[in-house]
């Protein structure tokens, strides 16, 4: 099982660029970190959940990880109005979140020490979360034309729940 999974994944990874390959490896490492236990350390891909993470090769996730790399190297005053560059901690927070999100957003830097993730449906429903170094993130949602703002716990679990509800899952 382990060998087959690795071979399959390696074939998929070969199709992508060097940066994408690096990002793909991060997905695997993240999955390994999450599911690794003393019992299965050397048998990573025998764990079905891990195999699904690796074999469900999420191109949107890779795309977001690549964009985070671009945001990471933005210099000070990147917006021409004195914006600070993004802290290592915030970059780490958004990377871990992207790795954990079940549905990938579009993400954008802001000049407010945050990175905005967005979900939008064709019917106009919209969900925006400002990912920051705070324990709670600001969110803005439009659902059935009703606007809601508030704060959400910064844990990936809570955010995945909110996204699931947004998509009616």
């Amino acid at each position, binding site marked *: 099982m382990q060998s087959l999974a690795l071979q399959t994944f390696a074939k998929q990874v070969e199709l992508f660029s060097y940066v994408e390959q690096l990002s793909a490896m991060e997905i695997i490492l993240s999955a390994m970190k999450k599911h690794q236990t003393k019992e299965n350390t050397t048998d990573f891909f025998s764990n079905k959940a891990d195999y699904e993470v690796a074999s469900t090769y999420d191109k949107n996730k890779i795309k977001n990880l690549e*964009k985070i790399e*671009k*945001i990471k190297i*933005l210099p000070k005053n*990147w*917006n*021409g*109005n*004195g*914006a600070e560059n993004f802290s290592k901690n915030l970059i780490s927070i958004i990377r871990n979140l992207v790795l954990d999100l079940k549905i990938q957003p*579009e993400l*954008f*830097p*802001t*000049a*407010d*020490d*945050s990175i*905005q993730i*967005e979900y*939008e449906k064709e019917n106009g429903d*919209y969900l*925006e979360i400002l990912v920051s170094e705070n324990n709670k993130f*600001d969110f*803005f949602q*439009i659902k059935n034309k009703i*606007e809601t*703002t508030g704060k959400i716990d910064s844990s990936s679990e809570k955010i995945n729940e909110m996204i699931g509800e947004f998509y009616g899952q």
Partner: protein
Amino acid sequence: MDNNFPLEEKLYRAVFPPEIREMFWKENGKVSSAAFLDKKGLSVERGNFRQDSDVLEKMKSFFIGKVISVTVKNCFDIKAIPKYLPSERSVFHSEIHGSETVVILSPSQRKVLAENSETVGDL
């Protein structure tokens, strides 16, 4: 020019960073509302009814990036306030504030402005 903004006047914003011009554009071709979030105040150049090409030419001397525009009416419709704040760099410099007392735009205001913005050109 003073703090009176006619409804039809255009306000131009250069969207940085120039190194990665598509950073703020969504897959559906629209600009993200994140481009309208700046805790220091949303800087714009007021058009004062100049031609787009004239505005771009002037902005070219101190900006690089994509330029988008909204109208003063777009701002008033969502109770955002254009402020005329000329600087040494530009006599046209202005900012769009969330209200008379709040500098930052609300998420709702940002989204509406993003949806109503038009791409004017590249610098």
